[in-house]
């Protein structure tokens, strides 16, 4: 496993004491840190989206249900992937949860190994999402340092326009475009046009 992966936590939210106990024990046995909560409300009080990990969530709970907790997390664009624990008859709820972005489901009663596989997959997914997000934040930080004119030049450059066209478009000399272009590459820390184009795509991507 990579360094830093030790900071991830498997959050367990289930109103059933026995389920919480056995899942905590299972996580301990495979050396993954976990934290259990008896209700969605308790989890929300503790929750911080900067903590990497995943959420193992009972879909059916008194008070705030698993689906409602998912809604709350979606409202704040939480990254944390969710594995729902479902019962046999929970098909319509599972369909709804899936449409709202749930990563995975596990139906009670389940085999330990089945859950462990799903948790490992969810942790990988979380790791990837966080990497993409931090890369995007870094690119946006660099873009913030560009002047408006440099932003215009960058836009035209990544569209594939040669300096001559950009100069005509912005009604400046070709030499001026060259200077702006060099500043853009420097501020964005881009070593090639291809890299700049990739940065622009990442910056404009959805999540």
């Amino acid at each position, binding site marked *: 496993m990579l360094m830093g992966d030790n900071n991830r936590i498997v959050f367990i939210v289930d109103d059933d004491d026995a389920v919480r106990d056995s899942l905590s024990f299972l996580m301990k046995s495979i050396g993954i840190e976990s934290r259990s909560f008896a209700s969605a409300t308790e989890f929300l009080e503790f929750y911080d989206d900067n903590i990497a990990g995943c959420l193992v969530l009972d879909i059916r709970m008194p008070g705030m249900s698993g689906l409602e907790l998912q809604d709350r997390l979606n409202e704040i664009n939480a990254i944390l992937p969710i594995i729902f624990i*479902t019962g046999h008859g929970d*098909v319509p709820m*599972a369909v709804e949860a899936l*449409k709202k972005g749930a990563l995975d489901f596990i139906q009670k009663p389940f085999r330990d190994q089945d859950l462990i596989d799903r948790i490992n997959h969810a942790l990988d997914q979380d790791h990837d999402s966080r990497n993409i997000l931090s890369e995007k934040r870094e690119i946006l930080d660099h873009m913030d340092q560009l002047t408006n004119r440099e932003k215009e030049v960058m836009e035209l450059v990544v569209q594939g326009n040669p300096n001559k066209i950009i100069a005509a478009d912005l009604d400046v000399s070709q030499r001026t475009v060259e200077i702006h272009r060099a500043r853009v590459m420097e501020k964005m820390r881009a070593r090639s046009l291809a890299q700049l184009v990739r940065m622009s795509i990442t910056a404009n991507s959805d999540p």
Partner: protein
Amino acid sequence: MISKSRTTTPANRLVCIINADPNIRKKLGVLLKRSKHQTKSFASGSKFLDKLEALSPGCLIVGQDLPGQTGLEFMSELEQRGYSFPTILLSRKSNVSIAVRAIRQGAADFVEIPWVDRKLLNTVDKLMRKQ
């Protein structure tokens, strides 16, 4: 709700019912016709495929238990042939893993039998209006 769908649904679009059970075909047909949808029913996936060239389906309601294949298999077959229709998968034996597979495979919805008329109609209306 229902009258709205009549004005926005192109008149020649069909709701195609693909189900091995004649009672379900009949029940769905009656329900949808009452809401001004035009329907056509097929007892199997292959019977639907035979007629497909002459049809313009707006959406499909596919049974999970088809003769010789599952509804999910039929959905894959359609995809392999290059078709994509908004599809509701209808299933008597249902569990979370079939439902999840259906949605991941692109089904617009997964509905358990017995279905709730009003909910099913809402879904069909939505799918027919989308196009």
